[in-house]
């Protein structure tokens, strides 16, 4: 696997970022592009400002004259498709590579276009304002407070100080978060993930192909996955109800044959501070409504039983589409024992989670391990 340092206003074009990580991933796997049977790129015509976004990276991703396809959504979904292509028997290895340059676009403008042009778009909704609606609904249902959510931001930015790839390592306090600029209540600047640029890639291999590879890096297996999509309009569902995530998680746990106790570390899609406790409820680590309280008790810090977002999470770097893949990569690093100062000791089973759409309409859950 390979990832770039996540930051904003990168000077490289996104093709160059893809080239960088594709090479990193190949080196890490100890193979050349010749051993890659097919490529799944994860890209978005919207954020790239180009239609047929695959075209822009088909060569740098190693896809020249190969079977190549594109998933438009979070990286976790791309890994799923990359895996299914191998399991079909048609391919032995898949290069999955995601890229994003948020700094080249307007986050508000682009997320506004995910709203129905026939109804909500004209009202001017975007990612932050719609998530603010979800945040307050979650507060009403759970009794959670802005201060409790702020703890997530403090934890994750703090974790990021141990991650050389993270964009925003910061030593902050709850007061800092509470004092940051109010964007759309209850979300303040430090409750929100930043605009990021970056790319990441993983090389997937079927068991039989992996055995032939001569790298001495420990292989981390994709043991379970599930994905599920909820209703589209914000008013069609209870925004604090994580039913789609629950369905996706159950599928992943059953497929991997794990229970919650088996999981040693988790990367959860914290695009906003309130999302971490909300998704932890959907994943089953907290009872419904208990997420904020558990955060306050410190149950998910680096030195707890279940460290969540040791990488710093999406709050510390959120290159959209790449971000879920970055979570998968962090799980790989943890399982390999290569996570440096944020290493969770004895990590053997890891969970990576990605979301797609506004307010986590769609979820993908991965269980990785030995």
């Amino acid at each position, binding site marked *: 696997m390979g990832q770039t340092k996540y930051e904003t206003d990168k000077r490289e074009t996104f093709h160059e970022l893809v080239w960088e990580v594709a090479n990193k991933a190949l080196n890490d796997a100890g193979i050349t592009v010749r051993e890659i049977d097919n490529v799944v790129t994860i890209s978005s015509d*919207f*954020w*790239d*400002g180009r239609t047929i976004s695959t075209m822009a990276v088909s060569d740098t991703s190693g896809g020249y004259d190969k079977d190549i396809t594109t998933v438009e959504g979070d990286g976790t979904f791309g890994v799923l498709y990359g895996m299914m292509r191998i399991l079909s028997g048609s391919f032995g290895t898949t290069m999955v590579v995601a890229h994003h340059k948020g700094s*080249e*676009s*307007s986050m*508000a*403008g*682009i997320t*506004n*276009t995910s709203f129905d*042009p*026939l*109804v*909500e778009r*004209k*009202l*001017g*909704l*975007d990612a932050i*304002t719609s998530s*603010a*609606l*979800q*945040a*307050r*609904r979650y507060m*009403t249902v759970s009794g959670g407070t802005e201060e409790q959510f702020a703890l997530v931001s403090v934890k994750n930015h703090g974790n990021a100080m141990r991650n050389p790839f993270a964009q925003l390592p910061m030593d902050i306090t709850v007061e800092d978060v509470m004092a940051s*600029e*109010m*964007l*759309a*209540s*209850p*979300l303040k600047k430090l409750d929100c993930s930043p605009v990021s640029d970056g790319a990441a890639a993983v090389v997937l291999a079927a068991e039989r192909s992996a055995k032939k590879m001569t790298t001495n890096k420990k292989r981390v297996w994709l043991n379970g996955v599930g994905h599920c999509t909820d*209703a589209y*309009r*914000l*008013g*069609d569902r209870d*925004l604090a109800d994580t039913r789609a995530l629950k369905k996706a998680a159950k599928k992943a746990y059953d497929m991997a044959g794990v229970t919650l106790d088996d999981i040693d570390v988790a990367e959860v899609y914290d695009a906003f501070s309130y999302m971490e406790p909300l998704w932890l409820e959907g994943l089953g680590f907290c009872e419904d409504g208990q997420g904020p309280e558990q955060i306050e008790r410190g149950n998910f810090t680096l030195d707890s039983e279940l460290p969540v977002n040791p990488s710093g999470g999406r709050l510390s770097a959120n290159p959209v589409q790449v971000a879920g893949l970055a979570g998968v990569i962090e799980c790989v690093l943890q399982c390999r024992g290569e996570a440096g100062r944020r290493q969770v000791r004895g990590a053997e089973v890891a969970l990576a989670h990605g979301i797609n759409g506004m307010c986590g309409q769609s979820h993908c859950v991965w269980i990785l391990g030995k």
Partner: protein
Amino acid sequence: MRQLADWKSEVEEVVFPGKICVPYSWTVGSTLSRWYVQLRDDGEIWANRCPSCGTVYVPPKIKCIKCYKDMNDWVKLPGTGTIETFTVVNKERPGLDPKKPPFVYAVIKMDGADTGMVHLIGGVEPEKVKVGMRVAPVLEKERDGHITDIKHFKPIA
């Protein structure tokens, strides 16, 4: 053929439609057309109901999202509702804000329906808006068949 703008600015296509020179016109379709015509011509908010499970949706659905049945039963709603959640938008977003901040978005659980509608809350100071507040629609006098035919929802006693 029109000149395309400098490439760096074209990635803002969705905010400033002129930049990438791809104009759009979206077909409203049968279901939403009917909804908007009622709103525009009669100032009424309607919903439709699934013949199988009875779920009532506003804005109306083309198929029930639970049963995938055709939705041909229409129901007139009183228009009132309860604020399920809201946000006070504080920071300006050029090109997107429907009015100058601070203003309020809300999901309003509509009376007579099983779903909520997203819209603006007006006629009250943003800091006074609360979850659970009862609200009613304020319609524009001149309407052209879009969601903005409803100016906002305002609190009622």
